[in-house]
């Protein structure tokens, strides 16, 4: 039997936001839909987002899921997490965020959280008219796992985002290698390549990479307090505030105590019902990614 958290079981037995979204004649909104998985693979998710056209804000999110307990719970969690976010903010949600929201998932079930993240991305890409196929088949989109149709780029992404080190973990996260197993050696090679690329990035970069998420958390030297605060300020200024300002809000760094980062939400953010989500997803996840995985963001 799987070791599910209370949160997973709760969202499975009492799922929130199931179903479709209909917008009969409602002005200024559109529905974005993202579909991933297939019945052959044993799980599939169709995600519906109701988007306010003028602000890009997700007003509502619903899911339809074919899958196991954790697939249903992950889908429900995802819909709860993205409500109130703008599409740009939603794109920052990682599969790890979904798993964290659920209080963790069994390792062999992490692919359920990945499915959620992919459906979200698919919905947003659909909405923006970016063809998913071209995204999937970007330069190195060769098919690695034929059993589950998993591309090279997808495997690289999941390795990078979740700091995976073994082929077995890759199987747990995206299923690749879990069928006939003939691609396991290739997955080993990809893990080594990603590791080498990371080592290079660490050597050559003297600033925090902006578009690439940092993949070298484990290898960094610990920062001094001053360096840490400076880095937090820098990440807030360069990466977080522009997104918030675009939404009519803002954030100010108030204090840093160890791993606790205190911030003041301003403008539209201070009154926004999704300010907690903003804190957790837009700010905390960013800082964890860039500065330290232990960071906790609190409003003042």
């Amino acid at each position, binding site marked *: 039997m799987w070791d599910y958290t209370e949160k997973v079981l709760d969202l499975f037995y009492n799922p929130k936001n199931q179903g479709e979204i209909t917008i009969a004649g409602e002005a200024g909104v559109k529905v974005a839909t993202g579909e991933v998985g297939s019945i*052959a693979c044993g799980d599939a998710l*169709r995600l519906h987002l109701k988007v306010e056209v003028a602000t890009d804000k997700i007003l509502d999110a619903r899911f339809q*899921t*074919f*899958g*196991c307990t954790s*697939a249903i719970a992950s889908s429900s969690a995802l819909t709860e997490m993205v409500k109130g976010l703008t599409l740009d903010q939603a794109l920052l949600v990682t599969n790890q965020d979904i798993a964290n929201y659920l209080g963790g998932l069994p390792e062999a079930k992490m692919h359920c959280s990945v499915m959620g993240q992919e459906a979200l991305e698919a919905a947003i890409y659909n909405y923006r008219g970016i063809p998913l196929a071209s995204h999937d088949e970007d330069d190195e989109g060769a098919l690695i796992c034929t059993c589950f149709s998993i591309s090279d780029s997808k495997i690289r992404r999941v390795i990078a985002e979740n700091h995976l080190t073994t082929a077995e973990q890759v*199987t747990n996260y995206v299923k690749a290698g879990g*069928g006939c197993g003939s691609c396991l050696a290739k997955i080993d090679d990809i893990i080594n390549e990603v590791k080498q690329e990371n080592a290079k990035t660490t050597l050559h970069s003297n600033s925090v990479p902006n578009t690439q998420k940092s993949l070298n958390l484990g290898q960094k030297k610990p920062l001094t307090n001053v360096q840490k605060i400076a880095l937090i300020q820098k990440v807030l200024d360069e990466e977080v505030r522009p997104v918030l300002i675009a939404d009519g809000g803002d954030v100010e760094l108030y204090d840093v105590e160890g791993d606790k980062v205190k911030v003041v939400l301003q403008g539209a953010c201070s009154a926004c019902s999704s300010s907690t989500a903003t804190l957790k997803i837009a700010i905390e996840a960013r800082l964890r990614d860039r500065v330290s995985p232990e960071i906790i963001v609190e409003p003042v």
Partner: protein
Amino acid sequence: MEKNCIYLDNNATTKVDPQVLEAMLPFLTDYYGNPSSMHSFGGQLAKNVRIAREQVAAILGAEASEIIFTSCGSEGDNAAIRAALLAQPEKRHIITTQVEHPAVLSVCKQLETQGYQVTYLSVDGRGQLDLNELEASLTGNTALVTVMYANNETGVIFPIEEIGARVKEYGALFHVDAVQAVGKIPLNLQTSTIDMLTMSGHKIHAPKGIGALYVRRGVRFRPFLIGGHQERGRRAGTENVPGIVALGKAAELELLHLDETTTRERKLRDRLETALLKQIPDCEVNGDTTQRLPNTTNIGFKYIEGEAILLSLNKYGICASSGSACTSGSLEPSHVLRAMGLPYTTLHGSIRFSLCRYTTEAEIEQVIAVMPEIITRLRALSPFKNDDAGWLQQQSQLTHH
């Protein structure tokens, strides 16, 4: 620890019968001696082991000397396959089926890397073998045909004697994994074509950790486990006296109740199956319903996933099992259902209920009462409502060209 439940997973394991427990307990407490000892404290136990051997022989219709006690069904399967090959070192071909238990399949896979050729017979949509395929596969080089009596997942019973007759024509040995069949199907190995047969205690209300292997008199049997003279040199290791006594008692009880139990189980199983099929749309029985164990039903519920059904049943304290990918511990659904070529729409939503002589009518009625709502709830969550779910079909075609 949960204790009270509606246990409909008896093909996985069974409750120890109170009479079995009572019979074995003194051999854990007072009579803990070693039957091989010279002193009477230990030596006296040889008698209890002998009685148990006779009880096990009786349920199989065999001679006591043809029974070897083992630790489990998997050991029996491993030992039988190895022994059959050692007895005929010049032959290098094995025939089995695609739907065997992993205890047989994994050994065969390993033997393929050791110079043996293995034929895995296919099954049709009802889970049945094609005897023509068997005949076409048999050659003078075939050392062993190993086939299960009844399938653990679907309950489908193979035509064992028809298979055996063909095996004998080619002079191969015939091993049958009867772990699911013993106690549910009357057996008489004296008039059978079976050379070796595996059984397991915990499927017939004895504890885990005890099983038996029948080896027909005259079969050249070399032990799998060596290092002791026990079991007439055919299985080393100090006898598991409490387990052996328990297996004997369990076999005695199964034989005693065989007719009555199977009639009752069949009636309850049919009631469950009929009621579910009637109340719930888009579901069907997996496997040959004409040749099937009386206690087993495997039903495929379309458009939903098995683990989600199991967890929903679990909420009502109902224990069943599923062949879905999420429950298999791998990412592939059951090898048995896949071998039957079931469509993906049902494959992932298959649920097995397996009854035993303790199953009550009230329990069956409770399952019938809760299942429709569980299925409705999960189907409401699912994006699939019928077989032409466009984008899924497309994707699955892409995936499995």
